[in-house]
């Protein structure tokens, strides 16, 4: 089979081929497509799910591995923070069937809160970590990861970065699933983590790492015979190869596939006879630090250049040009630098991401803001499409920290600044992920806040995955639907209001206003399906009554309404989804509906 595959798709194919039995995950860019691809495969000994959050996903996979299944769990780097608790304990307990923890890092970052480096997390957990450079390599390393995991009875961290996850490459492979017999769960005292056991297991873990060092060293790649050594990893390997094109004879490359535990011998062999070492890696100087320790312990001195002495930037992603610049700065080799750029190109302001035309969140935000008019309000936000509620003209997000923090930070803000009204916005998938515990805390401790659940019946930002509130499972099969309002009432919260943000705007504002003026904890659920999943067979247009006051443009910030070349307001019918929110603000009834017959 020959196919162009994205890194994440390549991993999914390889997992299935290598007989994965249980795969779980929580969506998060750039990791989402692994489960999205796996869900299209089926076999009687294969199961895949979107779990409620990363901690849950990792624990489900951990359970499966204890019974001898090959399991895999996927998440983005910040998801690993959520799953840190079970992962660290699992490094002590160990596994039975092979288990791979896929974590996608996001240098840049393109769509994340942090630029954290999962290789450092692997060091922290004392677990092996593989770092593929391309979809092709990722495909072949999946098998290796299962083998390592099964041999050493430890979960293996499989760390990819955006440019590996989301680059596409031509792959050729046989699409045939390996059939394995799953052993049953065997009762053993070592599955129960207790302090005494942890001490013994810690000793074992260090012994395993020592054995692994030399064995996994074979996965690292050494190329070239030049006396300038470049140590690199992941996608940076290809940046380096391209940067030194034409000058290959001057350089040798060490591509470190296993950043932890690092193989001392590989480092020492590579460093022997080198004039200098240049460390080119994205995010943290993990290999740079590990390698320097190895050199120091063995009394080897080689001049080194990397992040620690300012030759490679800490923040942001690398590319061929940045790598060229670094190598030039170190070696001063003429001819290395790229041809001239068009430095005089005019500057263009960044395009701000915005809520889609017809997004129900826009309406919900504006309803709440209008209901709170005249009050001093703090709006806490959360992670999802609706984080874009911070942008003008909506400006209804004053804080955003991490998944679920809207509900909890609101409580702290209210304690410290009690004269203000505090309103939290949280999405439906995020509510299930980590909003519920915060809401329990608010009820238990009598915090006086309003929580708005923006329920668009999907996980929007990552590409429309289902969640418990939808009831459908990842595979499309029917699951059990969890009704958010029932969860809220189940906690004991009496003040619950469900609103359709597409209903009459002023009526919604009135309802919300009455509701939030009451004292105590209250929850409003704004429920309307994501505009990308719904077609209303209509759009709006501006008629001759328009006085060009631009209230519609300046109030909604809807991408479908803008000004044409003559600065007249117009609605782009290819973008307009027919929600009609703009009509609520027009003083002249100059926006009219056009029904499309199909």
């Amino acid at each position: 089979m020959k196919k162009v595959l994205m890194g994440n798709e390549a991993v999914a194919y390889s997992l299935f081929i290598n007989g994965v039995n249980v795969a779980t995950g929580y969506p998060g860019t750039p990791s989402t497509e692994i489960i999205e691809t796996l869900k299209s495969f089926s076999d009687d000994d294969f199961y895949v799910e979107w779990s409620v959050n990363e901690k849950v996903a990792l624990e489900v996979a951990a359970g499966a591995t204890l019974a001898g299944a090959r399991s895999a769990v996927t998440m983005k780097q910040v998801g690993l923070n959520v799953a840190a608790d079970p992962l660290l304990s699992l490094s002590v307990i160990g596994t039975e069937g092979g288990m791979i923890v896929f974590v996608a890092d996001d240098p840049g970052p393109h769509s994340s809160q942090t630029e954290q480096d999962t290789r450092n997390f692997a060091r922290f957990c004392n677990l092996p970590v593989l770092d593929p450079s391309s979809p092709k390599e990722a495909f072949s390393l999946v098998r290796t990861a299962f083998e390592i995991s099964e041999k050493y009875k430890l979960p293996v961290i499989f760390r990819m970065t955006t440019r590996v996850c989301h680059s596409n490459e031509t792959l050729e492979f046989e699409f045939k699933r390996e059939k394995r017999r799953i052993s049953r769960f065997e009762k053993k005292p070592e599955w129960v983590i207790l302090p005494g056991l942890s001490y013994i297991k810690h000793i074992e873990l260090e012994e395993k790492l020592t054995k692994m060092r030399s064995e996994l060293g074979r996965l690292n790649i050494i190329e070239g015979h030049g006396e300038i050594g470049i140590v690199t990893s992941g996608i940076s390997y290809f940046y380096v190869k391209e940067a030194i094109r034409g000058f290959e004879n001057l350089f040798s490359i060490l591509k470190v596939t296993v950043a932890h535990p690092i193989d001392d011998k590989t480092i020492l062999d590579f460093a022997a006879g080198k004039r200098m070492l240049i460390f080119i890696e994205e995010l943290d100087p993990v290999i740079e630090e590990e390698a320097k320790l190895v050199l120091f312990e063995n009394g080897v001195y080689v001049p080194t250049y990397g992040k620690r002495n300012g030759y490679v930037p800490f923040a942001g992603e690398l590319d061929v040009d940045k790598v060229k610049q670094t190598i030039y700065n170190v070696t001063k080799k003429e001819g290395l630098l790229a041809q001239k750029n068009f430095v005089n190109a005019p500057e263009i302001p960044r395009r701000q991401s915005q809520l889609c035309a017809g997004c129900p969140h826009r309406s919900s935000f504006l309803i709440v803001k209008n209901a709170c008019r005249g009050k001093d309000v703090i709006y806490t936000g959360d992670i999802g499409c609706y984080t874009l509620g911070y942008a003008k003209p909506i400006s209804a997000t004053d804080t955003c920290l991490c998944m679920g923090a809207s509900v909890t930070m609101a409580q702290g803000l209210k304690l410290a600044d009690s004269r203000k009204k505090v309103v939290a916005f949280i999405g439906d998938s995020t509510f299930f992920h980590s909003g519920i515990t915060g809401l329990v805390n608010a009820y238990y401790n009598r915090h006086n806040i309003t929580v708005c659940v923006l329920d668009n019946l999907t996980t929007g930002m990552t590409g429309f995955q289902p969640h418990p509130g939808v009831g459908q499972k990842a595979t499309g099969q029917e699951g059990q639907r969890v009704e958010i309002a029932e969860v809220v009432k189940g906690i004991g919260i009496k003040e619950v209001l469900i609103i359709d943000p597409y209903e009459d705007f002023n009526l919604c504002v009135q309802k919300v206003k009455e509701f939030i003026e009451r004292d105590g904890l209250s929850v409003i659920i704004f429920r309307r399906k994501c505009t990308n999943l719904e077609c209303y067979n209509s759009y709006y247009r501006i008629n001759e009554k328009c006085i060009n006051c631009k209230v519609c443009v300046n109030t909604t910030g809807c991408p479908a309404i803008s000004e044409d070349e003559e600065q007249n307001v117009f609605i782009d019918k290819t973008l307009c989804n027919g929600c009609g929110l703009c009509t609520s603000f027009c003083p002249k009834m100059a926006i009219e509906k056009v029904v499309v017959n199909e």
Partner: protein
Amino acid sequence: MNNILIAGVGGQGNILLSRVICQLYMNRGYSVKTAENIGMSQRGGSVVSFIRVGRELAPIIPNGSCNLLIGLEVYEALRNVSKLNVHSKITLNNRYIKPKDAKIRKEEILEFFKQNFEHIFHFDAYHIAIELGVPKAENIAMLSLICKNSLLPFSKDEILIALGELLPQKVFEINKLLVEKIFEKY
């Protein structure tokens, strides 16, 4: 080695176009690597795709190395000029979605391209797609015009085969009509 950059804004079908071009090269037996921005940028932000034909390549095109720029939107085409050199071929869709606070006017952008590059091609893929009743297919309209003018080496039949491999049947039929009409008429 061939380096193609597609610049546009979210919703213009940038990523699908990248997949189609990738498939076209693959069908001819070439090794291809592509990279795309996916995530926050999809919500009306800038979207860039890189397509690189050849082996052992990084997925991102280095500065000055792009051979063909497909500008689905002109402001976005301008944003990526650092990837171009004077010999790069530049194709511009007649589509202008001005970023908020952008000071430069469209005439100035066109003048900038004219001053700095040798090969510029203007295609009205946007309006042709609207005229043919499929406004969302401006990406495939652009590809058809580029191939029809021999800026990429693919025939109408090759395009249809690649589309057939990538699109669901119903969407394919709509696009097929568009491609055929463009090769016939425009």
